[in-house]
C-alpha cells in the first residue's frame, strides 16, 4: 500500500474541524445500534475519530514535520477499516452529538478516504461498484427489466410532467411493493407524473458513496439530472430514503450547483393529495399499527426531514389505531439493514434487527410499517446477507411498507 497517504486530502474544512471537535463524551454510545449489538467500544464513534486523529497527528503533526512521519502499519489500517465499515451509517451518533458532528457524512468521507488510498471495501461491497459500472445499478441485471417486476397494470405514466417519480433500483429488486403502492396512490389521487424509461433511470449512487466508492458518480448524477430535466420535472419524488438523501446532499455537489428540480419523498406528495381530498380510503384497517422512521428520512437530511407526512398518511386510513415506537423521529432506532452492514457483518445486522423488532413488539402493534427498501428487504424478504434466519428469534408482528399497506385500503 502507498504510505505516501495524505490523510487530509478531500476532507472538507468542516470535517477536519469535526475530527478535532470530538470531546469523547460518549453520549453517542448510548444511541448507537452497533454498540447495543456488539458492546465493543473499539469500533465506537469516538474511537474511530480518535484513531483517525492519531493517524493525522503521526503523519502531519509537528513532530512529523520536523522529524518525519511515523508509519501507519497495515494492521492498523485494517483495524480502522473494520471499524469504519462496521456501521450502518444511521447517524444516531451525530443526532445526539453535543458538538454537532455530522457523523453520517464524516463516516462516508473516511470510507472514501480508505478507497482512495487503495483499500477496497470489505466483503461483497466492491461488487456494488462493479455492477454499477456495467449495469448502472447495484444489481447485476439489465435495468430495462425492472419496471416489469413491480409496475401494476393500468398505471398511466406521462411523457413529461411537473412531478417525476423515481423508485430506485434497490426498491425495484429488494422492495417492489413500495413502488407498486406508490404509483397506485399517485394514480388514485389523480396526480400526473412522469418516469424515465427503466434503462434510462440509473442508480442514484447512494450505495456507492456510502461505501466510499465515488469513481463513477459524475456519470450517474449528470446523466440522471439531465434526463429528468428534459422531461420537464420540477419536483422529483422518490420512494427510497437513501435516494432522497443522495439527491439532496451529494447530487448538488457532484452536479456543481443547485439541481434544476426540487427533491421530495413520495409520502409527502401522497399526504398533500390526502389534504386536498383527492385520495380517500374506502376500506377499514381495524388494527393497531406503528411506524418506523427510516434513518435517512429523519437524520442528517439536507432540507426538511420527512416524519409528519407518513404519519398523516397512516392516520388517514379508517380504523387505524396508531401507536408510536419508543424511539421515533431523529432518535429512531436503526433496524440494522443499511450502510453495507448486511454484506460486511450480517450477524451484527441480525442482532440489531432482533432488538429493533422486540422494541416494536412492545407497543402491542399488529403491524409495523416501514418506508425503506433496506428495512423491507431485511424484514419482509429476509435478505440478510450470508445468513437467512434469525437463530433464536422469530418476529411475531407483521411488517409492511407504508405505501403498499395504504394502497390496499383504496
Amino acid at each position: 500500500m502507498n504510505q505516501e497517504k495524505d490523510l487530509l486530502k478531500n476532507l472538507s474544512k468542516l470535517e477536519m474541524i469535526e475530527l478535532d471537535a470530538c470531546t469523547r463524551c460518549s453520549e453517542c454510545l448510548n444511541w448507537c445500534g452497533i454498540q447495543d449489538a456488539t458492546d465493543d467500544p473499539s469500533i465506537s464513534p469516538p474511537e474511530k475519530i480518535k484513531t483517525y486523529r492519531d493517524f493525522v497527528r503521526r503523519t502531519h503533526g509537528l513532530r512529523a514535520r520536523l522529524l518525519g512521519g511515523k508509519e501507519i502499519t497495515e494492521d492498523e489500517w485494517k483495524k480502522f477499516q473494520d471499524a469504519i465499515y462496521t456501521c450502518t451509517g444511521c447517524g444516531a451518533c451525530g443526532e445526539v452529538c453535543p458538538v454537532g458532528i455530522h457523523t453520517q457524512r464524516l463516516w462516508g468521507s473516511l470510507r472514501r478516504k480508505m478507497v482512495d488510498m487503495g483499500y477496497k471495501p470489505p466483503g461483497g461491497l466492491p461488487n456494488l461498484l462493479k455492477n454499477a459500472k456495467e449495469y448502472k445499478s447495484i444489481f447485476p441485471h439489465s435495468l430495462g427489466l425492472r419496471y416489469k417486476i413491480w409496475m401494476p397494470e393500468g398505471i398511466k405514466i406521462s411523457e413529461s410532467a411537473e412531478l417525476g417519480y423515481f423508485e430506485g433500483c434497490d426498491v425495484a429488486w429488494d422492495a417492489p411493493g413500495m413502488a407498486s403502492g406508490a404509483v397506485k396512490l399517485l394514480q388514485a389521487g389523480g396526480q400526473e407524473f412522469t418516469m424515465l424509461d427503466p434503462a434510462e433511470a440509473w442508480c442514484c449512487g447512494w450505495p456507492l458513496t456510502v461505501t466510499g466508492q465515488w469513481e463513477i458518480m459524475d456519470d450517474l448524477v449528470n446523466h440522471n439530472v439531465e434526463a429528468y430535466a428534459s422531461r420537464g420535472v420540477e419536483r422529483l419524488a422518490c420512494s427510497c430514503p437513501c435516494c432522497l438523501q443522495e439527491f439532496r446532499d451529494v447530487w448538488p455537489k457532484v452536479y456543481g450547483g443547485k439541481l434544476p428540480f426540487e427533491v421530495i419523498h413520495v409520502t409527502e406528495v401522497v399526504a398533500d393529495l390526502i389534504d386536498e381530498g383527492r385520495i380517500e380510503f374506502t376500506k377499514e384497517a381495524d388494527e393497531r399499527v406503528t411506524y418506523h422512521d427510516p434513518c435517512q428520512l429523519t437524520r442528517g437530511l439536507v432540507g426538511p426531514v420527512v416524519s409528519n407526512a407518513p404519519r398523516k398518511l397512516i392516520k388517514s386510513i379508517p380504523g387505524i389505531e396508531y401507536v408510536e415506537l419508543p424511539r421515533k423521529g431523529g432518535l429512531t432506532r436503526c433496524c440494522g439493514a443499511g450502510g453495507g452492514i448486511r454484506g460486511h457483518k450480517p450477524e451484527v445486522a441480525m442482532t440489531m434487527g432482533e432488538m429493533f423488532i422486540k422494541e416494536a413488539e412492545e407497543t402491542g402493534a399488529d403491524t409495523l410499517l416501514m418506508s425503506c427498501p433496506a428495512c423491507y428487504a431485511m424484514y419482509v424478504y429476509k435478505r440478510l446477507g450470508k445468513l437467512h434466519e434469525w437463530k433464536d428469534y422469530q418476529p411475531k408482528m407483521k411488517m409492511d411498507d407504508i405505501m403498499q399497506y395504504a394502497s390496499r385500503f383504496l
Partner: protein
Amino acid sequence: MVLCRVNLFNVTDEDLAILKSFYFTPLEQLEVEDDGRVILNFMGGDLCEGINDFGDPCKGCRYQPEIVLRYLRKQSEIKIGR
C-alpha cells in the same frame, strides 16, 4: 414468515429472465420443471398453504412482486408445492 412454493404456468422466456433477476439470493432460486412449470422458493419457514400472515390469498399476496401476481391472477387453479 412462510415459504412460498407456488407454481406458475406458461411463463414466457422474457418473464422468466425477469423472475430470475428478482429471486437472486441462493435460497430463493426458481425451479423450472420439464413440463414448463416454474416453482418459487421464496422467503422461509413453514410452507405457506395459500393464505399469508396478513390473510392475503395468493392472488393478492403482498409479498409477491407484480410480475408473479399477474401470472397467479391468470391461473384458475393455484398449485402449491410440487
